[in-house]
């Protein structure tokens, strides 16, 4: 097997990273090479991947690197592997805030936790444990727990949540807490305010 040309290496890296097949036109733009040179390099790349675990395929109007069929079994096992099962402490805290106060916005969660909740909320939405529940008056997206959350925690509904020892969070009291959270947004020195950076450090 011959070493790849610099152009071939670029193409290999591009096909490796691209989530979608790359049309010839895109490869031309990305590498600055001509179509004839690209075609040669693609051919060399395909030859290089013969008898490997990957193959170059022309599919969906472009070129893609993909796994060979004979590796399908191992790949399926990888896909079937349960994703990280454990909830991180940040995720658990975020879930708790939403479960007790839903519907609730991200800034409200952040205020209660003392740190921004963006990543935790996004992760929980992706895992299907939280879902959007309309918008608050100000326009911020609100979140609530999902059916999957109830199944996973064996709850029939919010009324099954264990009561909190020191706080009463049902009915008007919960309303009151939410109102205070919302108002905290107006106050410059809200006690739990998230200390946010002035810019990316």
């Amino acid at each position: 097997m011959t070493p790849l040309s610099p152009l071939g290496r670029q193409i290999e890296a591009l096909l490796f990273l691209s989530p979608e097949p790359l049309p010839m036109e895109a490869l031309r733009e990305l590498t600055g090479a001509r179509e004839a040179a690209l075609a040669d390099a693609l051919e060399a790349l395909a030859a290089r991947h013969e008898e490997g675990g990957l193959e170059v395929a022309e599919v969906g109007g472009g070129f893609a690197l993909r796994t060979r069929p004979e590796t399908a079994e191992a790949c399926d096992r990888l896909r079937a592997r349960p994703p990280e099962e454990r909830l991180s402490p940040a995720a658990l805290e975020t879930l708790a805030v939403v479960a007790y106060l839903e519907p609730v916005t991200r800034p409200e969660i952040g205020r209660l936790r003392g740190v921004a909740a963006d990543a935790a909320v996004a992760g929980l939405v992706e895992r299907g444990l939280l879902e959007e529940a309309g918008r608050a008056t100000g326009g911020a997206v609100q979140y609530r727990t999902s059916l999957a959350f109830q199944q996973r925690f064996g709850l029939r509904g919010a009324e099954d949540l264990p009561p909190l020892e020191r706080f009463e969070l049902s009915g008007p009291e919960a309303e009151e807490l939410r109102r205070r959270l919302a108002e905290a947004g107006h106050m410059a020195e809200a006690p739990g305010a998230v200390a946010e950076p002035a810019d990316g450090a």
Partner: protein
Amino acid sequence: MSVEPLRQPLSLDVFEGSLDLLVTLLLREEVDLFELALAELVGAALGESALDRFDAATASELVVLLAALAELKSRRLLGEAEDEEPDPDAVEARERLAERLVAGAPYRRAAAWLAERAAACAGHRYRRLALAPAAAPAPPQGEPRALAEAMDRLLRARPAPSLAHLTPRRVSLPALVLRLRSALRQGRQLSFDALVDGVDRLEEAMMLLAALEVARRGEVRLEQAVPFGDIAIIPVGAPT
């Protein structure tokens, strides 16, 4: 690999935070803390092109240090007697500071080691594509009217904005100007839509400001073929 940030000349590249600068100064025989002009120090730490590579976190640490140095200098200028009995409080405070400087020094050197590492590993890109999920279940009966309603809600005017939902600002204009410039370094035209793909609306708006700022400085020109269409950011001198 030898990492000796403390021995390098004073410039922004070795400025490793307020305490480190202090350590640097203290360990450099040739610098007398009291002969050092504060203005020179600012210049040395931030460099002439401070505006181009403004880093708020580092700069704010410098401000803190400058305040402390200014105080030191003023005490000295007031001329406390050299042979005066040292104030035990001052001695203790000095020892505490020394301990902190010694305790923190390894991390500042480790940071320099990390910087070298990062430079050595800068070229690698990881695929990080999520595994194709198990086949999504077919949606339960779709209700076309629900689509129309959802669209209708989105198009209808929003209620008056309230400050309650404001998320804290996490992007800065200088940082975005920097990012835009480094993207432009390739000398190619950029697509505004591609630049802001996946970012939230606030960052998108800030990026637009950044593009306008860079255009104002004459580094690029902006072209928009159709109203609401993509904006092309074209480096000055690049072929159209």
